[in-house]
């Protein structure tokens, strides 16, 4: 009896040791991962890409019922406001027709001027549209997964847009999925131009909904309503894509509101402008 009790205790303590050893090992591995992740090796990127490639079909399957429920809800809501929408659309159409005339005139004038200057034409852009299947947005990071990858012509550095404006850039591409780093992510830094003043700045995400403007020239006087568009500096974006606008100035710091409605990212247009971007040329190396 005594003997059996003793061996049971010994067995239990051996088990406890093994248990503790496993935990120590696993915690150590997690710390090692953190260091490895900080080093940003291509191995990790490959692992990330294969995980999202493997999981994106599952997520797409799961996303479909959610999308249809949402569509039903949207349809019902639209139905109720049909009359108002119709009136506002008619007003919009009138206004847009005027703008169309203006745009045509400008296009003709632009063509004529380009012909006079013998301007080298920019390479034409190609794009694909893809469904957003995951937003890993959260407390620590702002990215989304889309269901288009290398197979569909998406490249690292492709610009992700909605009808409203720029959303972010493609940071990782798998065979049939890609990850888009949103402008609001803490590691997102893109060159921008203030449309009215032509001041250059860097739009830096900080995981909040209002990214900050860094490196504004001294004495640049922004006012609420100033539009912020992409800049060609760095060769990552073509110029003039809409990003957001200054909504307020708080203690001399401009607060930027992006044009994109974050809660409604359903489809993204991934545009490859064929620019010698920062991302394609290797980490941190500017052209």
């Amino acid at each position, binding site marked *: 009896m005594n003997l059996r009790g003793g061996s049971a205790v010994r067995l239990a303590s051996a088990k406890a040791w093994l248990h503790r050893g496993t935990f120590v090992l696993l915690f150590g591995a997690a710390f090692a991962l953190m260091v490895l992740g900080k080093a940003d090796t291509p191995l990790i990127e490959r692992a990330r890409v294969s995980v999202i490639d493997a999981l994106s079909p599952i997520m797409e399957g799961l996303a479909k019922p*959610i999308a249809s429920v949402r569509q039903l809800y949207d349809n019902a809501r639209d139905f109720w406001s049909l009359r108002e929408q119709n009136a506002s659309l008619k007003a919009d159409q009138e206004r847009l027709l005027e703008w169309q005339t203006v745009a045509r005139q400008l296009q003709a004038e632009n063509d004529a001027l380009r012909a006079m200057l013998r301007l080298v034409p920019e390479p034409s852009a190609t794009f694909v549209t893809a469904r957003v299947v995951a937003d*890993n947005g959260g407390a620590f*990071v702002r990215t989304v997964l889309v269901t288009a990858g290398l197979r569909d012509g998406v490249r690292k550095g492709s610009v992700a847009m909605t009808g409203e404006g720029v959303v972010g850039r493609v940071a990782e591409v798998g065979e049939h999925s890609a990850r888009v780093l949103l402008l609001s992510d803490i*590691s997102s830094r893109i060159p921008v131009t203030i449309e009215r003043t032509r001041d250059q700045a860097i739009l830096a995400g900080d995981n909040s909904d209002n990214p900050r403007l860094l490196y504004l020239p001294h004495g640049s006087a922004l006012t609420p309503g100033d539009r912020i568009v992409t800049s060609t500096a760095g060769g990552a974006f073509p110029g003039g894509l809409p990003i957001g606008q200054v909504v307020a100035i708080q203690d001399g710091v401009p607060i930027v509101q992006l044009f994109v409605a974050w809660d409604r990212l359903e489809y993204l247009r991934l545009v490859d402008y064929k620019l010698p971007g920062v991302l394609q040329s290797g980490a941190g190396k500017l052209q």
Partner: protein
Amino acid sequence: MTFSIFHQLDNWARNLAPFALTMLSLIIGNMPLHLPYFVPLGISLPMISVYYWAIHRPGLLPAPVVFLVGLIGDLMGAAPLGVGTLLLLLVYAVALSQRRLFFGQPFLVVWWGFMMIAAGAMSLGWILSSIVGGGALDPKPTIFAYLMTLALYPALGDLFARAQRSFLRSA
């Protein structure tokens, strides 16, 4: 003979339930829900799952499996690698060590335990992400994520309890 093989297979599949549910909560937590005015909050559903199973059936969700789920979550989410893994392991280890305190207790006690442990884990997550990210992150999203995760615990916990009753009764 064949009966016993099928019986074993059946048992084996049932025992996978905690892992399968944890993986499912990881995937669903990453889905875009497109709720109006609902910005991504980073609710950690796997944290709920890991806490629940650590208290109720730790044998079916061993530490290496928790590590694996955390790793997949980190790779999927583009968050600082290792941070999510560490948090899940931490929640698991603490819940397991305090298991006697919570096992068989009324629901409110178990929820209170989750409140405490998740608060510690989320704060640590915020600190680690700030260190890895190189600069203090805005704490607001983390606080929202914590509150949302806390609020979802009763619903998810109930779901897991149902699963436990229906899949694991015999085991």
